[in-house]
Every structure is written in C-alpha cells, then in structure tokens.
C-alpha cells in the first residue's frame, strides 16, 4: 500500500527557501504568488495491513520521529483511500 506524508515547517518558523522562491516568482512577474512554503513529501510503500490500528501507529511513530523534526516541523499523513482517517 502507498502512503503519502507531508512534512511542513511550523507556521511561525522562518522558511528562507519558500521566501526566496516567492521573491523570484514575483520578480518574474507572477505577482499573484503571495506566499510559498516549502516542505517535504514522502511516498512510502508499506507492506503491512494499514487497516490495523497498530500498523497505523507504527507509521505515525516513524513519521513523528524519523521523517520530521518535531522542534520545527509538523506533518500530515495521507492514508490509502480504503483506510479511514
């Protein structure tokens, strides 16, 4: 099964990359771009059965502890469609 994970900087944490991209796009004439925030995106192929709560807890642990840095980042997990959130 395929999981998707989004890791983003917490809202008050500075995102120099996003800001630089926004400035560049504005410079290229795209003034509609008011703000850009850059995050990470992971696609994970998971061999276990994600309908089991335990399995989902494991994913949560991995994302919280390995894929993201809790000091400055938050995350969101997108489960496969068949799994309830």
């Amino acid at each position: 099964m395929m999981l998707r994970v989004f890791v983003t900087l917490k809202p008050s944490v500075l995102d120099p990359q996003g800001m630089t991209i926004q400035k560049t796009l504005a410079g290229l004439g795209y003034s509609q771009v008011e703000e850009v925030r850059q995050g990470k995106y992971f696609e994970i192929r998971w061999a276990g059965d994600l309908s089991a709560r335990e399995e989902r807890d494991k994913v949560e642990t991995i994302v919280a502890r390995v894929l993201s840095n809790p000091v400055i980042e938050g995350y969101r997990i997108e489960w496969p469609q068949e799994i309830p959130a």
Partner: protein
Amino acid sequence: MKTGVVVFPGSNCDHDTYHVLKHVLGTDARFIWHGDAHLHDCDVIVLPGGFSYGDYLRTGAIARFSPVMQAVKEFARRGGFVLGICNGFQILQEAGLLPGAMLRNRGLKFICRPVDLRAERTDLAFTRAYEPGQVLRMPIAHNEGSFYVSPEELNHLERNGRVVLRYSSPSGEVCDAANPNGSLNNIAALINEEGNVMGMMPHPERASELCLGSEDGKGIFVSLLKAVESKNPRIQESKNGPRGLSFLNS
C-alpha cells in the same frame, strides 16, 4: 584577452576565479553583475561556484532566470567560450546549455576534498594544456554533484566524446571507489556539442597556485587563453569594470 566572471547573488567563488584570471594569468578580468544584459566584449565567460540564491529550490535553478543568462546563452550560441564551475555547471544545466542534472551526493553529505581526475579530452579549447589520459588533482566542494542523465542521453554523450573529465584513482583508473558522489560513469566535466561550453564540478581556480597544493587546474584557463589568442590574436586594451563592483575586489 578579456574575461568575465558572472556574479549572482550568493556566488562565492567569484573572487577566487577573478583572482586567477587577473593575477595568476594576467588577463583583463572583470565581474559581470547578474542583472547586466550584456557581457562587455568578454572573450571568455566564467560562471563561478558558490550558492547562487542560496541553492534554494534546486542548485542553479533560480540563477538561470537572471538577465545575464540571456546574454550568456546568446554569447554561447555565437561560439563564445563559457566555463561553468561547480554551481556554474549546475546553472548551465538548468539553463539548458549542458545536459543532465546534479542529484544530491550519494553519501548525502557536502564533500570538500581534493580528488583525482582523468582527462578524457585534451583536444578541446578548455583542455589543450593537458596530455591525453593525464591525471589531475583538484578539489571538489559540493553537496549536489551526482551527475544524472537518462540512459539514452548518457549513451549519446559517451558515443560523442562529450565527457571531458572523470573521477579516477591517482593512477587514472576509473572505478567506483574513486567516485566521490555517485556520478554516472564517474563524470566530472562535460562539453557541449559545439565544444565551446564546458561545465565541471571540480574547482580549477582552487588548484592554480602551488601554495594551495596543486597547479593542475591552471591548465583549463591557460588552454582557454591560447584558444582565444589563436582565434583572435589582437590583444585588447584593458578597461575598467562595470560601475559599482569595485568593492568586490577587496
């Protein structure tokens, strides 16, 4: 001979390259601001290393939109010599002047150290100072230097002799152990089809004076000097650089 070093916001090997062109080789060197739309009659344009725009988004991705890059493209199209070093190479790739892209080093770390390189092409305007198969020692300093192109393109590049330098052992053996970053076929430098645009990840400007440990990189600049002279024997008068950049010479 007039040489130009392009200064992007975040370029940081601009002074080093300028120093070699001006003080080691004695060319009429100048800085060219990224916002300039023309190249001040330079015979050679160097895109130096560094972190243009912080290397944010992707290495070289934002620099390619600078006004000066239009001029560089036009200059290259007319046959002018363009050398991209490290970040300069990445900018040339993003700008479509050289093929492929640089992925993150396979060790996922920035690497700064001298490496050995085997010269594959010594018949180019950039490399005539070297002997065929000569092994050169120059430093690398990058986080994204793992050269990638599609398999078809790689084939094409190899068949057409577009690889100029490969990471090798000190004795010139091209092997995985000598590959610092995971580049396909150990590719460290490439030439375009017309032979006037070269990109290289190693830093020749850091290996152009003996006191820095190696003079092997100087051959790149010396070759270019000769190539320009044979193309255009008239020695040009030196002029002052563009206004507002003199403070960069500190």
